[in-house]
Each structure stands twice: as structure tokens, then as C-alpha cells.
């Protein structure tokens, strides 16, 4: 759609508002509270996934799915400003939360950037309809931050590739459909030059999905063991051994995550973490709102939230216009991670003894303690803040790169710890 015929943002916003109000339920109370809380059974979880697929389908049918995706692939071909308007109108309503990240960003974004026409037509409309949920097969047990050090191996066999190895930290792989997988296709060249990217169905023989129990009991994260998994060459994305070109954009889309224009999330929502409204609820339910120290802490949480949102807007705008490099996404990743841990600590502090021991009647205080134990998830998941700091200092500020021992040597000769 050309700029001239495009619906203007305010008109779009009004249309979105009336559709949302007529078609979506209010968000469940406390839906965005807590840090990866374990509060539903597997059956309930599967029912929620099914409901979210259906929500996504309704968004698609109403013309509100893939707002920034090209029309040719089922999207609306509109601008990030339209997506932002939609997000603002969505606040306070249910939405398909599990379908957003990593399905829309980074996975669908990577397919859009690097997929062949055929691959895009096959997957993007299906994703926008809620038919395909995607996971990143990226991190490995042998290395989290050193993504390009992947050891999962793909060996060519005629028109197919045979994959072996293990991937980890896939959220909800047990109810997802497809994996975007980074694998090593050449061990005889330096690490960044021997990688390729594949798309594969998760539920197939040879893919063994294990659920990992986190310290708070949640079992959303998974580890996959790949044993002789056969992937057609047609499901390779990007060139053979040039997977890192894809990987760099992949990391970018991963850092954008909930701030990506491809992702639909209510504005002001805290993702996998605690926002200012949760902190306010904890203060209210602990009866401490008239304590000036508590007021300060509640105000700090809100200050951090507003500042994070303002920063993301600035970064998005800067990267879109070219005033900032794509590497600047790391600034948002660092800031929001640190803000999230701080906000979590504020809630725990306000909860007082209720943070250490609570009953089910304690309303917003309940589980503050468990949330606190899981606090670091926001500075680890999605790329650690240490990696973000490396990216900012080296790629944004131009400071000297860290010395590495894995450059310009064949990957098989790179020192590795453990048994491998």
C-alpha cells in the first residue's frame, strides 16, 4: 500500500478501538503480574494456547494482524506508528501473549528478512493466522552468550540435511510448532563462517523435547535433543555457511523483542516481569501506601517504567530513520533489563515480611518472594545484559573489541571446556 492510500494513524486508531472494545475481553486481573509464575496446570496452559491461537485468528480476520508485515504475506503493510496506536488501544484487554515473542520477533522477522519468496508465502500468512507458533533453536547447553559457538551440527545428505545436537531455553517448545535453528555446517572454518539456519517442525521423530523446571517450579523453558533430524534443503534460510549474516539480524530482532514493530503488546505492559502497577498493588495490599518511603518506591517504579517506554520510542525512531545503528537496540535491552530487576526488588521490599512468607489471602503480596528469586531472568533471558554492554561499548561507542581466542582459527581447533 503506498503512503498516499494508507489509512492515517488516527483513523486506524479509532477503528482499532471500536473493534477491540467489541471483540476482546478485559485482561484478567493480575494477568501481567509476576515473573514467569507457575500458576496453571498443563491442561489449562494448553487451553490458553488454543484460545490465543483463536484470538490471533480473530485479529487476522479483522485486519489487525501483522500490521507492519507486507500485504503480500498476509500483513497490513502499515507503519510502526499504526502498530503503536494499536498497542495503546489494546491496553487493558486480552491478547495472544504467547504468540508474540519469539514467534513474531525474532522468528517471523528473520523469515521476512532472509526467506525465499516461497518460504515467506508458506510461513508468514500461517503465523499471522495463529496456525504456526515458532521457537528459537538458538542457545545451546554449551554456551549461552556465545551464540556463534553453536555445536549443533548439520551434515548434508543429498537434498537434505541431518541435524544432531541440543538446543535450550526455548519457552513453551512443548506447545509450539516450528523451530528456527542455528547449526554448524562447517567445522573447518572460523566459527562465524561455518553456520547455517534451518526451519524445522518441533514435533517430529528425532526431536526430543524436555521441560526444564525453574527454581520457582515453572516448566515453560525446554531443552531439545536433536537426533538425526532430517531437514529438506528447501527449509534452509539464508546461504550455506553464511548463517551468521542471518544471525546478526536475528540477534537484532531478539533485542527488539517486545519493542519490535512486528509485535503486538498492550502499551505500558511489563513483560515477563513486574511493572509499576504491580508495585502499586503490592503497596496497596500491604496497607503501606501512606508511608512516604513506600510512596517513593512506587514513584520510582513508575519513573523507571515511563523512562523505559520513552527510551524505546527514541531508539525505535532513531533506528528507523538511520540516525542510530541497529546495534542501538542493545541500549534498550540493557536498560529494560536493569529496570526490571530494580522494579522487582522494589515490590519485594514493599512486601516486607510478606515477601518471605505469605498466605493465599495476601493478594498482590503473595508470590512477591518467588518473583524476587527469579529476578535475574530479565537480565539473562533474551541475551544477557553483559552481552548488551559489550555490544553498546564496542558497536555503538566504538571502543576496542574484547580479545578472543576463536577468531581466524578453524572452529574445531577452538578451545572448549567440558567433555565436548
Amino acid at each position: 500500500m503506498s503512503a498516499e492510500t494508507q489509512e492515517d494513524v488516527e483513523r486506524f486508531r479509532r477503528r482499532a478501538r471500536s473493534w477491540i472494545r467489541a471483540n476482546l475481553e478485559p485482561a484478567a486481573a493480575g494477568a501481567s503480574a509476576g515473573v514467569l509464575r507457575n500458576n496453571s496446570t498443563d491442561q489449562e496452559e494448553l487451553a490458553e494456547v488454543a484460545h490465543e491461537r483463536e484470538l490471533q485468528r480473530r485479529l487476522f480476520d479483522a485486519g489487525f494482524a501483522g500490521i507492519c508485515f507486507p500485504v503480500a504475506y498476509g500483513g497490513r503493510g502499515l507503519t510502526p506508528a499504526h502498530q503503536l496506536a494499536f498497542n495503546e488501544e489494546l491496553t487493558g484487554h486480552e491478547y495472544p501473549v504467547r504468540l508474540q515473542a519469539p514467534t513474531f520477533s525474532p522468528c517471523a522477522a528473520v523469515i521476512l528478512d532472509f526467506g525465499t519468496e516461497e518460504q515467506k508465502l508458506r510461513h508468514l500468512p500461517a503465523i499471522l493466522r495463529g496456525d504456526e507458533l515458532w521457537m528459537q533453536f538458538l542457545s545451546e547447553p554449551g554456551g549461552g552468550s556465545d551464540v556463534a559457538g553453536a555445536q549443533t551440527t548439520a551434515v548434508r545428505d543429498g537434498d537434505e540435511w541431518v541435524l544432531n545436537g541440543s538446543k535450550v531455553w526455548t519457552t513453551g517448545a512443548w506447545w509450539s510448532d516450528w523451530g528456527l535453528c542455528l547449526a554448524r555446517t562447517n567445522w573447518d572454518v572460523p566459527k562465524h563462517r561455518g553456520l547455517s539456519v534451518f526451519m524445522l517442525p518441533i514435533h517430529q521423530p528425532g526431536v526430543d523435547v524436555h521441560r526444564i523446571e525453574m527454581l520457582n517450579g515453572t516448566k515453560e523453558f525446554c531443552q531439545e535433543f536433536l537426533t538425526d533430524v532430517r531437514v529438506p534443503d528447501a527449509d534452509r534460510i539464508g546461504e550455506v555457511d553464511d548463517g551468521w549474516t542471518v544471525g546478526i539480524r536475528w540477534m537484532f530482532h531478539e533485542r527488539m523483542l517486545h519493542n519490535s514493530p512486528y509485535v503486538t503488546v498492550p502499551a505500558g505492559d511489563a513483560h515477563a516481569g513486574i511493572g509499576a502497577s504491580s508495585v502499586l498493588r503490592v503497596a496497596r495490599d500491604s496497607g503501606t501506601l501512606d508511608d512516604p518511603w513506600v510512596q517513593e518506591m512506587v514513584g520510582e517504579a513508575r519513573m523507571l517504567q515511563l523512562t523505559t517506554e520513552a527510551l524505546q520510542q527514541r531508539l525505535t525512531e532513531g533506528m528507523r530513520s538511520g540516525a542510530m545503528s541497529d546495534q542501538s537496540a542493545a541500549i534498550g535491552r540493557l536498560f529494560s533489563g536493569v529496570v526490571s530487576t530494580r522494579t522487582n526488588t522494589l515490590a519485594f521490599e514493599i512486601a516486607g515480611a510478606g515477601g518471605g512468607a505469605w498466605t493465599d489471602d495476601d493478594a498482590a503480596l503473595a508470590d512477591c518472594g518467588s518473583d524476587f528469586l527469579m529476578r535475574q531472568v530479565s537480565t539473562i533471558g533474551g541475551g544477557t545484559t553483559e552481552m548488551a554492554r559489550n555490544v553498546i561499548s564496542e558497536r555503538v561507542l566504538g571502543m576496542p573489541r574484547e580479545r578472543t581466542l576463536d577468531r581466524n582459527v578453524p572452529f574445531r581447533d577452538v578451545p572448549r571446556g567440558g567433555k565436548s
Partner: protein
Amino acid sequence: MQLHLTPDAEFFRDTTAKFLSEHAAPAEIRRRRDDPAGFDTRYWELGAQLGWTSLLVDEEHGGGSLSGDGLADLTLVADEFGRHAAPGPLVPTSVVAGALSEFSADRQGELLAGMLAGTSIASWCHLEPRPNDGLDGLALEIRVDGPDVVLNGVKRPVESGARASHLLVSGRTGGGLTQVLVPAGTGGISMRPMHTVDLTRRFSEVAFRDVRVPADAVLGEVGGAGAQVERQLLQAVVVANAETVGAMQHALDMTLAWAFDRYSFGRPLASYQELKHRFSDMKSWVEAGHAISDLAAQAVSAGSPEGAELASAAKAFLGQYGPELLQDCVQMHGGIGLTFDHDIHLFLRRVALNRSLHGTPSQHRRRIASIMCGRIGAP
């Protein structure tokens, strides 16, 4: 500062930047540390010609802005003030000129014209000693007495009070607020200079003891100035915020350059991961500072209902992270960063000053909490 400026705005900003590089170089600022005024009249007049004093004044009263959004234009000047730790009463001049333009342009035409030309200084007497410090209430009393109003109380710190021909004083009348424009020579006013962390900004304590002025010196309504005082406070906060961000940006740039130049153990400081990571944190604070400061400026300028909360968020954020960043810049410089000859303290002074005026981070955090409680109807 906004990422994208129109060519006009860029030209406007650049003109002030060049002027300040020439007239407010670090050596000049150091030289003025014992100057009783902190700046000379010629400097302020030239600045006024560049547009510094007119931005919150209506066109019909001789003011005018570049973009139609005077507060946004003013943040460009303030940002450059921060980058240069520049002298001059930018906040009080803007606030008072804006208030005169709105309420008293007909009666105070001469004063306003002088302020626009940079030849007259009027100061804003709003802040008071705690606990009623201008943010959590006011103690100065303004009483109606026949055809006059009578002022009793103390204002401090008052910027450029000693240089001002007029004082715009806020105070309490019964349950409401009142603002009065008082000639600085009126009987019953006594001033004494205060010490300050800044090298070129000057502050006074101003005591009002049965100070009597005719009632037509009141701006707006007696007892009905609450909203205008609040708006002025938000304007002051927005300008101070932009100044702080500019100072943070300059300090980061300076310190980054130092990290590349300075070698220890045969390596530049910039190559140490421990320092690289701290620079990354500082970069994130500066970008976040620009972002929240600009967003708040926009909301306050538009009179949006979110203005107060965003301005407080920006003030709380910059008040906390501005000095934090500057102190870390000092740390990265080592001992030389604590010397008078080094420039870094000029910027540390400015952000420390701005942190303390118009509400500390802690006060603004509580303001935010009370706004949130207002929204949900909690106590």
C-alpha cells in the same frame, strides 16, 4: 535533545552552541567564580538577541518561538547551556517572562521589553526552606489589606535575586495561591547572598517582612494562582531537565575521549571491559535522559494531562542519574577529575545544582505516587 531537528531548529541550536563556545568557554566560567553576578550584561543581551528570553512570550508582546512550540525551542537552548555549563538565569527569565506575557503584559510592558532585550532581569521567588519548599506547599503569606497586598515570608534559593529589578513571588492566601510582581527595592525586602555549588549561577535568600504593594501587582487572581504556579514549576523542571541532559551528554563525550587517550599498562582505558561496561550503562542513561526529557517537554508544552507525571519522572530520573553519571566520569578521570583546572566539575556542579532545585528525585517520586493513587482512587 530530540533526534531529528528541522533545519531551522538545527540552525537555532547551532547559533547558540557557537555563541556559547566563544563566550562561555571553560576558562571564562572559571574566571567568573568570584564575579558577584556570574555573567555580564553584554553576554545576556547578546544571548537575548539569539532568542533565549523570548520563547515563552507571546508574539503580540514581542516574543515568539521558532517552531510554534516555545518550550521545545527553549529545551534546545537549555541543552546547549548544559553542554557548556553556561552562565545566565535561563530558568527564572523564561518563567517570569512567560507569566508576565500571560497576565500582565499591559501593565508591565516596559519590564517585559527589557527582559526580552536582555537589559532587565526579573527573578522568580518560588522555592522556600523545607518543609514548605515550593513543591510540598508554600509558607510565604500574601494577605489582602485594603487596596494593597502584604507579603511575609522567606524565599530561597532565588536565582539572580541580587541582579533582579523585579521579583515574581508566589505565596499562600488562605487556602489558595497568589503571585505578585514586586519591585526589588520595595521596603521590607532584605536579601543575603547564598553559597552555591555552581560556579556562575548566583542565589540569594530573600526575606519579605510586611512588604506592601498595590493589589494590581497581582498576576491573575488572588488565591487562584495554583494552576499557573504549577505550570511554571513544570516549565522550570522541563528547562532544568534539558540542561542536565546536555551536561550529561557532554560529560560522557568528554570522558569517552579521555578513555581513548589515556593509556595504563600499555592499553587505552577504553579497552578495559570493566570500564566499557560502565560506559555502556552511562550511554543508556544519557539516551534514556534525552528520551524522557523530550517526552515530558512535549506533554507539558501541549498542556496534556500526562505532563505533570512525565515531568516528575524526568526530573526524578535525571536528578538521580545525572549526578551519578557525572561522579562516575570523575572516577574515570582519576585524581585529575577532582582538580579545579579540569573541566569535568563544571558539569558536575550544574547537574548537582539542578538535582536540588525544583524538587529532588525523592520529592518527585512521591509526586508520581500521588498522581498514580489519584488515578486509581487509592489514599
